[in-house]
């Protein structure tokens, strides 16, 4: 366990260095885009004279040299201050904190569901390889994988919300209903079904295909023959010997996807009007709300790095060889 702690500490130090680099790069990237918040705000206010814009810029600190702005920003981020959105007249951290739970609820549920179902279906297909159930799963997975997410979302919403009226078509909760406690949870859950299924279907397909392919490959290896030669039953061979070894590449991909929990939800949140980080990002781009945008980037990067470390730790737990190869 000492080895694991050491590994973890080492990774954290590296992560901090990577994070600072990302903050700087993001800052420069955002400022490379044409237009700034002062221009957009002045435009919206309908008073686009030079003086007003210049005044706004001075107020936001946008008239300072870029290097100075960068130094101020990085200095604040290091202290945990993500800045202030002049657009919304609130600290960025408050805005993010308000939106983050909705996004995580949606994407984490979809992630866990897709991983569980994907591995299960993939393993089943691999065991049944060549039979009709294998073909059915493979075709289903291909279909789910090839259909764009927004299309699946729109069609599901059309069927279950508009035509059948079973589920709400969009939003996070029934506005104005004032539910509390269990009723509120149920209400949110009903709203979650369609976006979660849409998102999960896509990733489930990827996991199912990967698990199936990986299991078929592992099954051809020598140690599986050894297991059969020992006279073990098929269930034990498939679970203890085949699946356990086949799960490693699945974990790699799952780790990458887990990093996208925050950043990858823009499309689905737009389709289902889900009040999360994804929609916030979309709006922030349109409004040139630099501070908010940078805040979102930062949170996304932290998530990616965090899940990378978690993936590596998980790898170390499953595969004993990793600790030595470190």
């Amino acid at each position, binding site marked *: 366990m000492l080895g694991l702690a050491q590994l973890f500490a080492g990774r954290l130090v590296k992560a901090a260095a990577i994070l600072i680099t990302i903050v700087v790069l993001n800052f420069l990237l955002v400022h490379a885009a044409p237009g700034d918040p002062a221009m957009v705000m002045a435009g919206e206010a309908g008073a686009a004279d030079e003086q007003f814009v210049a005044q706004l810029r001075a107020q936001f600190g946008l008239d300072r040299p870029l290097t100075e702005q960068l130094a101020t920003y990085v200095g604040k981020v290091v202290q945990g201050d993500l800045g202030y959105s002049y657009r919304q007249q609130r600290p960025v951290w408050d805005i993010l904190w308000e939106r983050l739970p909705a996004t995580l609820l949606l994407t984490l549920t979809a992630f866990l569901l897709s991983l569980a179902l994907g591995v299960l279906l993939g393993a089943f297909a691999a065991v049944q390889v060549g039979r009709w159930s294998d073909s059915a799963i493979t075709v289903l997975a291909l279909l789910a994988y090839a259909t764009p997410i927004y299309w699946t979302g729109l069609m599901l919403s059309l069927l279950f919300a508009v035509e059948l009226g079973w589920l709400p078509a969009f939003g996070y909760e029934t506005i104005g209903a004032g539910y509390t406690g269990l009723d509120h949870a149920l209400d949110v859950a009903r709203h979650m079904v369609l976006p979660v299924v849409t998102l999960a279907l896509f990733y489930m397909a990827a996991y199912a295909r990967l698990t199936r392919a990986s299991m078929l490959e592992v099954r051809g290896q020598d*140690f599986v023959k050894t297991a059969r*030669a*020992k006279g073990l039953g098929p269930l034990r061979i498939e679970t203890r010997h085949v699946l356990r*070894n086949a799960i490693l590449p699945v974990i790699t991909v799952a780790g990458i996807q887990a990093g996208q929990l925050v950043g990858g939800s823009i499309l689905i949140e737009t389709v289902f009007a889900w009040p999360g980080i994804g929609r916030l990002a979309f709006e922030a781009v349109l409004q040139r709300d630099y501070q908010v945008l940078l805040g979102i980037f930062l949170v996304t990067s932290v998530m990616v790095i965090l899940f990378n470390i978690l993936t590596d730790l998980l790898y170390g737990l499953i595969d004993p060889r990793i600790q030595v190869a470190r």
Partner: protein
Amino acid sequence: MASLPQDSATPAVPLLDVRGLSVALPDGADRPFAVEGLSFTLNPDEILCMVGESGSGKSMTAHAMMGLLPKPHVRVAGGSLLFKGRDLVTLPEAEQRRLRGGRIAMIFQEPMTALNPLMRVGDQIEESLRAHTALRGAERRRRVVEMLDSVGLPNPAELSRAYPFRLSGGQRQRVMIAMALACEPDILIADEPTTALDVTTQKQILDLIRSIQARRRMGLMFITHDFGVVAEIADRVAVMRQGRLVEIGAADEVLNRPRHPYTRALIGAVPHGISHRPEEPRRGEPLLVAEKVCKTFHVGGGLFRAGKPVVAGEDISLTIHPGETVGLVGESGSGKSTLGRSIVGLIRPDGGRILFQGTDLLSLSRRGFRPYRRAVQMVFQDPYASLNPRHTVGDIIAQGPVAFGESTARARERARELLRLVGLDASAAARYPHEFSGGQRQRISIARALAMEPKLLVADEPVSALDVSVQRQVLDLLEDIRKRLGLAMLFITHDLRIAAQICDTIAVMRRGRIVEMGSARQVFSDPRDGYTRSLLDAIPGKAWQIPAELRQTQAVAEAAP
């Protein structure tokens, strides 16, 4: 070879009675049956060696006995496998599973991959006990430790908690044996169990298998292609070819008075104990001088910590003269390949000098080294992995010269000439590597190396992946080329019999050092180092002399692709 049971005087009911066994291959295979009309018996307390070249159906037979054929593509098409009177072929799967691993156990060739990398070795042995015995948890664990102890592994209790990657090849094979014997089977099938091991480890494993077999009076079916091993352990020998049994009889009969022409050819191709070719006189200045070459690898490690150092080369000094063949022998991990690769420039040593015609290759820049890439060429061990499967053979051979400025047309023409030189048809240039057999691919590898017109050829185990008869052909080819082109060669091998045959000078390596170097005759007849002696001692079947009339038999013709 103690008392030899006569083939005719078998007990009333043999342990295993195979009658007319046929195993069908899927449509489109190179022949309809992997095994055809095979009949033999295996008795208690008997070692039956099954020999033949790759593809002869030996392994298929073993897999059929275990019910491990890759169904549904390969299946038993006819005949019966009677184990104590019960036919394994018609037995329901559940019954078969009870016998498999319980009454009939098997050891495989490749100890490095035959164990589940994610499971502790003790748990893997325990699985077998759980499947076949009524022992409880604590009893099972005690039995596991007992088994590991009985196969001669140190610290069995601790070792049972280790993962396979911590163990060496020899140790893993011992674990496999412990696993196979855990349920005290009546029959043990060993499919080339020592082929992937070093000579000294091979000797230990053979001794172990034989002593356990004798103690438990098991029927042992031992599959091998090595007649030295056969001579060492067999009571009876069965020779297979293309799925058919060509000869079966007492070991003494088959080894010393083989009747079938194929058996005679096979035995004729075996490297003959220790024999030498006429020595090449040393001429002129040394072509290559290696001086105090050192190389240490760091296994593992990362940004914040150094890895574990593994010394692959320490003060290695070696001289090669034009036209001379220097053999580098030793066990795996002794640093042979590291030295070979350093000379070719694939690895950069940490220290020392490698002088090629007086120029220190290690002091040269990348650009300065380039001309020498031509002069030193390498032939790799695995002919299946060392040729790019997406390129035609002609391209593979022509690429080197083209990279050094030769016109494509000229290089292609030369490639065709070289293919003829190595005994292939010039039309092979238009085909892809997968269309050739292992031996033919190794010829292509040699042609590729020769295309660069090298002065020195580094051959890293060039024949160890090939069958005996094919081995012989490739060695003959190398010998012929050496004579014709006056090529110097560094020949890396773990097989002392081969080294003896084709090398002028032998360097014996152990743990990154050369422990002995001298003329082949001196090293083999009068070894000075204790380690060299133990290597020579471990050659299997030393006591057996190949029948004199077979020594000059030509090698068996290589099968067409």
